[in-house]
């Protein structure tokens, strides 16, 4: 059994599913599970965290923590880690978690295993494996020296457990000693899209160069919206200007592992496969039966995507209605 500190992630007072993955995994392993919750006016969220099996939620609230601020987060978490002395500190490998965890590692003078896709608790330590070369291989991480073991875990890697309304956590106030901040976050500008982020979505529908234009991505978007999915794109489609870079899946874009990945008009260049091969179920739609994407696809449809994709949207609508 280990003493585990998990850094919860919230945006606009809403907890991320990836936080529940970490809390659930730690609690299921029988660990003494502590959660750090940072923000302003977020103390009400402690109850929800408790339902996933946390023992104690340490709530740090301050106006400077309302928006994510790397320096403020690092200061609060360093103090908490030093007073709590956990064996393990975990955060999700999100734009927030991946930003502050290296800083926390440095303050504690320990190593960090980032973007891990497997996590096992062993005694008071962890065993983790992470992709290297964007998933063309994986490696186990060995921590050198003493001190807490730090890791960030990829979203969707562990799975979200079911909450138990009968469970609750003790909630305590953590001191928010922010010191002198050289950095301030002045605003958050929302994205124009209501779709989920490609790294967080349970389903991703991606389009490649075969879409031929940004307008044609409309059929991809319609399929995605029917499924509540994110829209992704290959590097070729991004470089051609059909989609913004933030949608790019692959070695020089996002690495995703959704439950379902639908690749439309994507041949499957090695650098694209690196970004999505850990998806649980992969569907490929491509006119070329020899396309490399079929080597990793669970289901393939060798047909023109402009014909098949709208038909799929209609079929999915039928089962959604039932």
């Amino acid at each position, binding site marked *: 059994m280990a003493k585990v500190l998990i850094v919860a992630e919230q945006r606009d007072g809403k907890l991320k599913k990836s936080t529940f993955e970490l809390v659930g995994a730690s609690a299921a392993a029988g660990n003494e599970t502590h959660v750090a919750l940072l923000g302003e006016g977020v103390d009400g969220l402690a109850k929800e965290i408790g339902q996933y099996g946390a023992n104690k939620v340490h709530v740090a609230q301050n106006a400077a923590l309302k928006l994510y601020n790397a320096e403020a987060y690092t200061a609060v978490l360093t103090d908490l880690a030093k007073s709590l002395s956990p064996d393990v500190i975990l955060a999700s490998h999100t734009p927030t978690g991946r930003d502050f965890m290296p800083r926390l590692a440095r303050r504690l003078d320990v190593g960090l295993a980032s973007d891990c896709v497997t996590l096992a608790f062993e005694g008071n330590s962890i065993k983790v494996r992470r992709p290297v070369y964007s998933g063309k291989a994986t490696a186990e991480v060995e921590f050198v020296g003493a001190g807490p073991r730090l890791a960030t875990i990829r979203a969707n890697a562990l799975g979200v457990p079911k909450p138990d309304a009968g469970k609750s956590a003790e909630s305590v106030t953590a001191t928010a000693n922010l010191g002198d901040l050289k*950095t301030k976050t002045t*605003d958050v500008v929302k994205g124009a899209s209501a779709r989920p982020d490609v790294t967080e979505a349970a389903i991703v529908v991606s389009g490649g160069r075969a879409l031929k234009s940004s307008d044609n991505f409309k059929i991809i978007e319609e399929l995605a919206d029917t499924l509540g999915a994110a829209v992704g794109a290959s590097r070729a489609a991004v470089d051609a200007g059909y989609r*913004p870079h933030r949608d790019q899946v692959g070695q*020089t874009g996002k690495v995703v592992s959704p439950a379902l990945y639908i690749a439309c008009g994507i041949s499957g260049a090695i650098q694209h496969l690196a970004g999505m091969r850990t998806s649980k179920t992969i569907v490929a739609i491509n006119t070329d039966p020899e396309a490399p994407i*079929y080597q990793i696809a669970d289901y393939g449809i060798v*047909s023109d995507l402009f014909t098949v994709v709208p038909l799929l949207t209609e079929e999915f609508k039928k089962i959604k209605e039932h």
Partner: protein
Amino acid sequence: MNLYVCIKQVPDTETKIKLNADSSGIDPAGIKWILSPYDEFAVEEALRLKEKNAGSTVTVISAGPTRVVEAIRTALAMGCDNGIHVEIPESADNNFAAKALAGALKKEAKVDLVFTGKEAIDDGAAQTSQLIAEHFGMPCVTVVLGAEYGATSVKCKREVEGGAFEMVETALPALLAAQKGLNEPRYASLPNIMKAKKKEVKLLKAADVGASEADQKIKYKNFQLPPPKQAGKKIAGEPAAQAKELVRALHEEAKVV
């Protein structure tokens, strides 16, 4: 302005990764090494800032084995003025490399801004930028997609999830980690390629910059290639029948919809 770019040399994205005999790492045979793609945006940003501020210099620094000098020359060919190579072992982790890079920066008379790529595409750890800043003692903004430079501060647009941006203002000196889209990196010109070949790249040893094996905090071991996937099922028939069968299979067999 005294501008710095910390870069990494990585295997080309098209590289097929093979493991070495005891799976303790990858087989380096046949790898084509390149400047990590996100670092190109860092180099370009420093060069653009130099062009707007007369009398500025851009120094490119890389930590690693001797081969990384090639990546330094790539950056010099894009227009950087000086190159520094800090020699550390192939096996050095993010913290060891960051301590070495920060140590090299500390030896410089004045540092106004340091640029890096938001991550290197080999280990993809996205740690070294923040660690350099921590070792040096300066603020750091990661995943920067836009920046407005003032005399004593910089306003950054930081990309986060869902297409949203955090607007972050930080005091100088600072480190900015570039995201693709920050700018459009230039191609090296032939005269600059020729000049870059002749430029002296200053060599520093780890001990010169206060870094050592003691800074190694993690090691990678037991490398594995992804398990081969079983060949999937190609769904036959007319498009309408294919669509119907796929949706049925995803719903009833894979149970993902």
